[in-house]
């Protein structure tokens, strides 16, 4: 009896669809990737005040040197000693420009009430930054 030896076929892993799989995975990662870019308003805080009263310096600034922008709990703004009022962004820009005309080196002190919203403080600081003001002081009352 004649027994035929079976021919060995070539064993190969089909790779033709490999690029399709890879591209599908790429699309998945492209769709799910979120580049977490940080963007915001950058400020440099002053050094902590020294406890020693002798080391602490006291400066008295006039209205010509410093403008107080006090933000109240309900979002109103008190400019220096004026009555509190709601100031729109455009009005705030105009006010800042007006103060800069008096003194180009004007210091702006933003005093935010503890009960005021963070958003109100950011709105004022944003307008000051938009006017390219570097001398901004943050405080609370």
């Amino acid at each position, binding site marked *: 009896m004649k027994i035929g030896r079976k021919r060995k076929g070539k064993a190969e892993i089909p*790779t033709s669809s*490999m*690029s399709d799989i*890879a*591209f599908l*995975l*790429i699309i998945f*990662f*492209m769709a*799910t*990737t*979120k*580049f*977490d*870019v*940080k*963007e*915001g*308003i*950058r*400020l*440099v*805080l*002053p*050094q*902590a005040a020294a406890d020693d009263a002798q080391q602490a310096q006291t400066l008295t600034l006039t209205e010509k040197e410093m403008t107080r922008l006090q*933000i109240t709990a309900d979002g109103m703004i008190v400019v220096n000693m004026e009555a509190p009022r709601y100031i729109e962004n455009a009005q705030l820009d105009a006010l800042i420009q007006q103060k800069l005309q008096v003194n180009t080196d004007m210091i702006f002190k933003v005093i*935010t*009430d*503890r*009960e*005021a*919203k*963070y*958003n*109100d*403080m*950011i*709105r004022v*600081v*944003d307008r000051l*930054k*938009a006017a390219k003001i570097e001398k901004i002081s*943050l405080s*609370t009352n």
Partner: protein
Amino acid sequence: MANLQRKRNRDVAIPNGSMSDIAFLLLLFFMVSTVFVQEKQFWVERDRWPIAESIERIPRNHTTTIYVMRDETILIDDVPTRIESSEDTFVYSSLVRKKEEDPELVVCFRTDRDTMYGVMSDVMRQLQDANTLIVAFETQQRRD
């Protein structure tokens, strides 16, 4: 008489043998650069950030992020904390440690826009005490 022979048309094919290599390289790039952020209950959604115009890009390599929620919970290093008295110095102690590790540290605030400013003031006081003076308030870009 010149012997004019018609040129044989060769088969024109774009080699696509290395296509899968290119695809896998791209795949590796996305796999390496993808970060799945898993912060559930403490996440301050981007649409809750304040909106501003004069924003700048902050390089990520020296930053640490402090989340401040509307209910005055502060999240630093995935640890929730609160500042209710002068004895609550967790923010101060973590920032002192971070400042020692990276002297160029920038502290980024991701704060809900409706948070009361008082808690931000308390955090910033602890930042000043820890001598971490460069801060960034993360905001959304105004699109008018």
